[in-house]
């Protein structure tokens, strides 16, 4: 029997739907919304009241529904076909009329009863290349008319759109999975990296019983100071690591020299003064994400008047990180007990810093450091500096310390 050509109205209606389907699939809407609209468009084009889109899981070799309309209780339903059937349908790649006489129906028999429950009349497997992506089924037309060759052609085109949409979604899910995996790996590596650096810091501080946790405090003070100076988080992390490692060169200095309470001999002083350069040599062989770490370590005993060591740099010749480290290193040395003296108070230490501004220390950095302490006292929000000082600080006293500050 000759089939009737589609009317102009039907042709235009379908053409419009194809345009809308393409637009929907390329839209940035979420996958569930896109796939639901796509199913509705297919159903609307064939006047079907029941429809389902399944996704195929190649690992478990099952089909599971992603969206349905007109069918209740689809949750938890999965369907399975043999590898042979899958291979046959991938090769066939056309809509299958379940009331037809295609020899392909024999491959479909294991799931035919299930599809009958959904009222399925036409099933089309969704394929990209040679990969099975899913399946779509719709029921009889609401109009009661049969499906024509034109309908099959239209359904094939719409199924191709759907296949690419499902395929893209699968790729995105895989990509997200890989991203999550890589993120976890990165976090683990990052943690291992910090654990290693902390172990080094502990080893450095263990050389001197009086400077226990010195590197951790210098690290905390440096990062608080950097934050107050408006550094980016990434750079703050760099100076935090530099603070932990700034004395790494001391690992090469004899423990008896470090712990000696009597004046050091010229040789011993030479040994002790070598630690920034030794530290630089150790750290410059490591590929850090922050290139400035080795130089911060090398120059953390420089003085702004050029009387420091090892390079006798002046003012801005000294890297900013090293100037910051020099200040907080001295501050921590003053505010902790030493074999030859007791710790000084916060005010005493700050006055000492002020007295040595423009000689040993950078004035602006000293001022900013006190401002950072002032903020911590006022806000008490995750303090990094006052936490280690073991004394109650008075805001009026701090304000007084900020007065009459030396000019740069």
């Amino acid at each position, binding site marked *: 029997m000759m089939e009737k050509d589609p*009317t102009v*109205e*039907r042709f235009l*209606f379908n053409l*419009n*739907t194809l345009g*809308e389907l393409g637009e929907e699939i390329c839209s940035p809407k979420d996958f569930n919304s896109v796939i639901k*609209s796509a199913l*509705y*468009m*297919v*159903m*609307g*084009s064939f*006047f*079907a*009241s029941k429809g389902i889109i399944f996704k195929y899981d190649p690992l478990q070799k099952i089909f599971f529904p992603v969206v349905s*309309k*007109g069918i209740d209780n689809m949750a938890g339903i999965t369907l399975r076909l043999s590898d042979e059937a899958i291979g046959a349908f991938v090769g066939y790649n056309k809509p299958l009329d379940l009331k037809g006489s295609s020899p392909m129906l024999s491959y479909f028999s294991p799931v035919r009863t299930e599809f009958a429950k959904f009222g399925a009349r036409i099933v089309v497997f969704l394929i990209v290349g040679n990969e099975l992506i899913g399946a779509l089924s719709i029921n009889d*037309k*609401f*109009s*009661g*008319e049969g499906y024509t060759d034109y309908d099959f052609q239209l359904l094939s085109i719409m199924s191709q759109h759907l296949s690419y949409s499902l395929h893209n979604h699968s790729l995105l899910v895989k990509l997200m999975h890989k991203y999550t995996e890589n993120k976890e790996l990165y976090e683990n590596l990052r943690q291992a990296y910090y654990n290693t650096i902390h172990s080094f810091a502990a080893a450095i501080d263990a050389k001197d019983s009086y400077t226990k946790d010195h590197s951790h405090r210098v690290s905390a003070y440096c990062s608080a100071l950097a934050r107050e100076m408006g550094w980016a988080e990434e750079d703050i992390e760099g100076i935090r690591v530099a603070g932990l490692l700034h004395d790494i060169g001391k690992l090469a200095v004899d423990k008896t020299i470090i712990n000696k309470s009597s004046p050091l001999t010229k040789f011993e002083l030479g040994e002790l003064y070598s630690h920034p350069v030794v530290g630089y040599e150790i750290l410059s062989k490591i590929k850090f994400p922050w290139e400035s770490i080795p130089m911060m370590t090398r120059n953390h005993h420089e003085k702004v008047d050029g009387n420091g060591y090892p390079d006798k740099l002046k003012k801005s010749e000294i890297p900013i990180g090293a100037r910051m480290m020099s200040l907080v290193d001295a501050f921590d040395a003053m505010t902790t007990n030493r074999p030859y003296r007791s710790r000084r108070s916060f005010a005493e230490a700050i006055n000492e810093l002020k007295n040595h501004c423009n000689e040993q220390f950078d004035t602006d950095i000293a001022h900013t450091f006190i401002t950072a302490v002032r903020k911590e006292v006022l806000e008490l929000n995750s303090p990094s500096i006052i936490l280690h000082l073991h004394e109650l600080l008075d805001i009026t006293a701090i304000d007084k310390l900020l007065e009459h500050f030396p000019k740069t």
Partner: protein
Amino acid sequence: MINQHINYKEIDNIVVLHAENYINKMEGENLEKVCDAFLAKRTYKFVIDFSGTDIINSIGISILIGIIEKIKEKKGLVLFSGLKKVNHDIFDMVGLSKHIPLLKTEEEAVNRMKSGQ
């Protein structure tokens, strides 16, 4: 709660819904929600008036078919009215006109529903 985005009125135990200008996914789903809400309240007689509707796309058709099926499941009645020619042609093409009486005006549809014809 009845969807506030759809204009509707109740005449006796008949719900008259005024469909929007463009029956796409959003408008179609709004219509469906209102019908669901009335079906849940055991109101089974509906007139859907399309006099303000210029376009119905394939999604809209799919949703309308779903609405008809739901009303029929409850042994309810639904009539359409006020269809413009372009939409009348689509309903003919889809076969909806064979199943659902298409009346010229809302009043005709309501009167027919009342007379129980």
